[in-house]
């Protein structure tokens, strides 16, 4: 290898790729190493919804910041990334969920996010395939959709053009104290090491906790104009909040290809990537309840993926508790496609000692140590 790298990034998922682009753009010599190929992990299984979320202020801050970054980038994205500013439609099935629509509306408006409340009739006009009557919906027009593997490919390509190197098919065995040791015995030195190994990050950095959270997705054949927005039920919030029970929710996405991606399920404790027929059936039944016409569409493939989940549902971005020469950028759960870009900005700011655009405290890995101390 030629000149030593200043930064070694372990993991070429979307988070590692975004960090590579950002750091290379700052003029740093970057090397990315992945044990598989780019997007082997969660990134290759994801839906690619770029979405602003408001579970907590910190979640809002990082998703909103990221969404703006995606919008800034959208003119440069090649067609293969399938960027589609389709917006999100959060649908309410009852008055309780409608109250949530209004709360969410106020929350977004106060923070400058464009949103619009739809009544029952307007929901029908917006998405004629939804069952009638639904109580209403919140439309968030600024959300969008990408194809994650090609978005990752694009970020890596940009990084490469700026001098970064990418090697794949080489597992990293250990990192720390300024060195990266590969499984084949090669040892590399680096001023900074970024642990962007997704679900596997805790194996390389002790003291952090990430658990896989399994999800199923179904992709259909092409049905152009079947769907206009990414449509998500608000009941999703109730189910996604649960940290233990298996849950399903109605969550459908129009792809630029005309295909429909149907989600979603969340399971803890499932380690095996095989399709679980009972959760698949529940997930589809839920989707048919909201959009009955889905049941006659042709499904061409089903797959599963694992979201890298932290206990407080916020990503880990910053120095590793056990070794400050290692920066962790992992644990993005079901939002890593969205939050990859802001993660890269926060990592870059920490390396360069700059002031980040949003406060970094809520994402620092050291919070997990404190949380544990409180238990």
């Amino acid at each position, binding site marked *: 290898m030629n000149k030593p790298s200043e930064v070694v990034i372990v993991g070429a998922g979307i988070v590692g790729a975004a960090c590579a682009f950002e750091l290379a753009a700052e003029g740093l010599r970057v090397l990315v190493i992945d044990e598989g*190929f*780019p997007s082997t992990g969660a990134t290759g299984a994801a839906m690619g919804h770029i979405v602003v979320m408001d579970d907590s202020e910190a979640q809002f801050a990082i998703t909103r910041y990221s969404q703006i970054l995606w919008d800034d980038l959208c003119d440069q994205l090649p067609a293969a990334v399938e960027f589609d500013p389709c917006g999100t439609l959060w649908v309410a099935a009852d008055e309780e969920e409608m109250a949530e629509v209004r709360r969410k509306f106020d929350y977004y408006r106060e923070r400058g996010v464009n949103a619009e409340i739809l009544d029952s009739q307007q929901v029908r006009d917006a998405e004629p395939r939804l069952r009638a009557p639904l109580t209403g919906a919140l439309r968030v027009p600024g959300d969008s959709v990408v194809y994650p*593997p090609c978005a990752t490919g694009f970020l890596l390509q940009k990084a490469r053009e700026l001098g970064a190197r990418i090697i794949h098919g080489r597992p990293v065995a250990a990192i720390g104290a300024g060195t990266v040791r590969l499984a084949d015995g090669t040892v590399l030195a680096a001023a900074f090491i970024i642990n962007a190994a997704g679900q596997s990050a805790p194996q390389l950095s002790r003291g952090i906790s990430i658990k896989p959270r399994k999800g199923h997705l179904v992709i259909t054949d092409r049905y152009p104009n079947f769907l206009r927005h990414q449509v998500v039920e608000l009941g999703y919030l109730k189910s996604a909040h649960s940290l233990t029970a298996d849950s399903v929710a109605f969550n459908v996405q129009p792809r630029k290809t005309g295909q429909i991606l149907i989600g979603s399920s969340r399971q803890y404790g499932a*380690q095996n990537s095989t399709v679980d027929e009972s959760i698949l*059936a529940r997930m589809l039944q839920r989707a048919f309840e909201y959009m009955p016409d889905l049941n006659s569409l042709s*499904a*061409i*493939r*089903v797959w599963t993926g694992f979201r890298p989940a932290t206990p407080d549902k916020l990503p880990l971005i910053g120095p590793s508790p056990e070794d400050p020469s290692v920066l962790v950028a992992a644990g993005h759960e079901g939002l890593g496609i969205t939050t990859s870009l802001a993660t890269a900005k926060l990592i870059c700011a920490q390396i360069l000692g700059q002031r980040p655009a949003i406060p970094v405290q809520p994402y620092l890995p050291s919070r997990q140590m404190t949380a544990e101390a409180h238990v």
Partner: protein
Amino acid sequence: MDSVKHLRFDVAVVGAGPAGIAAALAAADSGKTVGLIDDNPAAGGQIWRGAQNVQRHSVSAVWLERLNKSAIQLVRGARVFHAADGELAAESDDSAIQISYGKLILATGARELYLPFPGWTLPNVMGAGGLQALVKSGLDIAGKRIVVAGTGPLLLAVAAYARKCGAKVVGICEQTTRPRMARFGMKMMLVPGKAAEALHFAYELRGIPHWTDCWPVAAFGNRRLESVRISRQGQTSEIECDYLACGFHLIPNVELPRMCGCQLKNGFVDVNEYQQTSVAGTYCAGEPTGIGGLELALVEGEIAGYAATNWEDRAKHLFPKRARYQTVVRILKAAFPLRPELKNLARPDTLVCRCEDVSHERLCEYTSWRAAKLHTRCGMGPCQGRVCAPAAEFLFGWQIDSVRPPLYPVRCSSLAAIPSHSVPRN
């Protein structure tokens, strides 16, 4: 919402080609309930499809007649798309079907390998078996000029069939070498019944040029095929034609066996002498265990049918017969290896995946099927790589990975009706 049907058989046979028919009949001898499931409207498989109206005493007529007279329940037009925990899920035009069984026999047959070359996606360039199937279902080829190209005895069968249907077969392009072809002819003479078959073909194909060391290099045409350029013993020439029927090897349909957990060996389902797979109670017969032709498929099917109904004696009786036909597998393998030149036919802009329009050039950037698939969408279309994955395997040497449900595109409602078990399986 579609209805969901439940069926239960002592022995379920998937695939009603020769192997499946023979297996079902042998199993039915025991008096057990037998279900024979096939995705086509009629039984017969690749070779006997549409054979209902052939001569009364032909081999196919005899077998199909036996099937009609038996107590076997033929589940037609039903495609098995999922298998787990001793149950199958299938889909027909109007319902989802859950099938449970005591024993399972997989006789899923084979499909054709398509190799990409410039022009291969033009209308009227098709698979050799594909053309045959279209003619059987009504395509009129009388007076049409046809070039048959590829490798192996399937070319002869298709050429003979096309001629019988009134087409003018301009030539047969066989990619293997002349010495290999000659050795093949000699060896097949020693296999029972094959000498007569060879003479029959020789007669039916009299006067049609049969070129060895010959393969298609490119196909041309404005809106549809007008001519094909062939390479023949190092020279290229152009032939005008209306159809180009290409047959480069058969690919065993091992996806369902794999989903059932059956182990493979060199790309084929690994079976013991009773045709039992690595999964107890699950058997496999016909092309998925080795490409060996009709007679082998029949005898393997019978052995599987007897073995699945605990009739080992009867199965054993058939071992010597099977051994005779197994030599065909070896003879075919030795005679028709695909030549490396075929890997270089595709130009940078030649499509490899026609569902998603992925060119050869774009695939060249990747080192594995999965990486290529994720980043180029190759194999992500409705055919789910059934066509392009075997081509990519041949062109790039890639291992084709996981099988996932559904094995074929199915309605979402059928997917939601897959039998599921309350016990979590991890």
